[in-house]
């Protein structure tokens, strides 16, 4: 496994954030990049700076009326009640100056990454600003204004008629926005692995959401029990993802690598550790080489323990994507710089110690329920994929 990997990023993409106490904090991007650099995993020559997405790009999946309102909101114009109907200016999605441009730049990043890979200019590409999977056609949702993966997939389909794209989302929240955008499209397989929507936002993502019309069977959901730990997460992933990807036979895999399934994440209730953030990218990487000539694009996503989880998880992602080994120890310079700002003690190692995350009391019951869900899913959905 070799070939060129690129890190699609521009400092302007760090403008996409909501400020103050809001959990979506773009500082996590800076911390990740500096960690990669400090570990010697990322060089200047590996960066690619993207252009913002054009309105024409955005309109492949978003309504013009919505794009117009995001633009207005970013200029401080528009009626607040009207904007709120589009999910803008809510507690989750506050309006900030130039919100349109900042998010269009993120979309441009994921699109650029996807294009570079699809055109064969690079083997793998990563855009950690991307992964805004909740954005809907006509509204902002769950910290997401525009849907970067949606736009990238829709555009690739225009540029390469007939291609098949597999979208693999391991964020702790259901990848609802992307799923609904391609719900009746048999050329786009969406696979989302997440905490069950029983308590968690957005509440969707049950196994019965399996696509409609020609797309029936091409939406795959693995809703995991709250407090699922590494072993059961990995077992569920292995039981489903390789098989559905092989059955589908995509031309490109786009992965959304939200890292909020970690036990330390404040917004959700899964109990995973760094182990899954090494396992998932490594396996997606292998599957891309096995199935689609290595064509793999990775984005970020959710991740709200920006101190202890996100930089390590996305460094592991970059290491997998760029065919490098992640060192075991966190670098001193990084720890001393960010340690000063962090309200919590930063972990000294890039990997978690299993002893810090012992099995919870209900682990056996949780594993059993996940196993039954997986069996049910494989029986009902796998036969539909061609």
């Amino acid at each position, binding site marked *: 496994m070799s070939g060129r990997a690129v890190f699609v990023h521009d400092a302007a993409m760090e403008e996409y954030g909501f400020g103050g106490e809001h*959990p979506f904090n773009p500082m996590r991007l800076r911390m990740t990049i500096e960690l990669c650099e400090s570990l010697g995993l990322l060089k200047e020559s590996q960066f690619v700076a993207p252009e913002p997405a054009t309105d024409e790009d955005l309109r492949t999946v978003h309504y013009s009326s919505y794009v117009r309102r995001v633009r207005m909101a970013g200029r401080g114009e528009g009626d607040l009640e009207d904007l709120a109907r589009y999910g803008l200016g*809510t*507690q*989750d999605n506050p309006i900030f100056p130039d919100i349109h441009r900042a998010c269009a730049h993120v979309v441009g990043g994921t699109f650029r990454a996807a294009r570079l890979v699809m055109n064969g200019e690079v083997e793998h590409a990563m855009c950690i600003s991307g992964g805004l999977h*909740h954005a809907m056609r006509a509204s902002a*949702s*769950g*910290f997401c204004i525009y849907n970067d993966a949606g736009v990238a997939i829709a555009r690739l389909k225009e540029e390469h008629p007939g291609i098949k794209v597999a979208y693999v989302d391991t964020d702790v*929240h259901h990848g*609802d926005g992307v799923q609904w955008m391609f719900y009746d499209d048999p050329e786009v397989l969406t696979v989302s692995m997440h905490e069950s929507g*029983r*308590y*968690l*936002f*957005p*509440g*969707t993502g049950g196994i019965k959401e399996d696509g409609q019309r020609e797309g029936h069977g091409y939406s795959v959901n693995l809703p995991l029990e*709250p*407090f699922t730990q590494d072993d059961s997460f990995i077992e569920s992933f292995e039981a489903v993802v390789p098989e559905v990807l092989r059955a589908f036979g995509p031309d490109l895999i786009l992965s959304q690598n939200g890292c909020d399934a970690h*036990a*330390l994440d*404040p*917004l959700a*209730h899964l*109990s995973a550790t760094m182990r899954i953030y090494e396992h998932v990218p490594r396996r997606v990487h292998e599957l891309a080489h096995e199935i689609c000539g290595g064509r793999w694009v990775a984005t970020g996503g959710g991740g709200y323990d920006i101190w202890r989880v996100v930089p390590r998880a996305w460094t592991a992602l970059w290491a997998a994507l760029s065919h490098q080994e992640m060192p075991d120890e966190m670098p001193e310079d990084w720890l001393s710089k960010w340690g000063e700002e962090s309200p919590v003690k930063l972990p000294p190692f890039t990997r978690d110690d299993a002893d*810090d*995350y*012992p*099995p*919870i*009391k*209900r682990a056996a019951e949780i594993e059993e329920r996940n196993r039954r869900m997986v069996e049910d899913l494989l029986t009902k959905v796998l036969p539909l994929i061609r």
Partner: protein
Amino acid sequence: MLLVRDWMAREVVTVETGTTVAEALALCRKHGIRHLPVLEGGRLIGVISDRDLRSATPALGDPSRAEALERIRVGDEMTRDVATARPEDPVEDVAAAMYEGNIGCLPVVDGDGLVGIVTSSNLMRALAQLVGVHEPGSRLEVALPDRPGSLAEIAGIMRDAGVNVVSVLVTLGPDGAGQRIAVLRLATINPVRIVKDLGEAGYPVLWPPEMHPGEGGA
């Protein structure tokens, strides 16, 4: 919004007393339904279910089955004295009537005319809409004392946090008197502050439970 007329099926497949069991069973299969209102002169006089139809006829494989299917008429096997609903009835009353009477459907009658049918699956759909499952949100179960003003206080916490409430249901707690449980669906991906504020104000969030690494609880 939560009246029978908002949730009933308006296109009703009906039979007459003279319809054969074979015809009635074929209608059930074709439309994927289990209950058929029986009309006579346009007036509702009974209901027949697929279960009634099956128990009235010899089992599959029995040589006398084919003859029985053609011979037995719906009028011989239907339930008379049918419980009905009116379009203006609240869905909760209909749910209680169906649950208490152990029945799977109620024909909806306006004056003398049959205008619809409400089945348990219509009510399930109403319940799903009631709790807001079709809108993105987070779900919380909150304990609150059974006294005036407690709901207003938790609503005030949502207001102060600037978060819209998609739906709210309040029910008696498992311990009966004194405590109620509010089931809230909030239009946010981030209920962290609300959970904290509710707890501090004396309204503990029961589900999802809080858990910290290494605690081994839950």
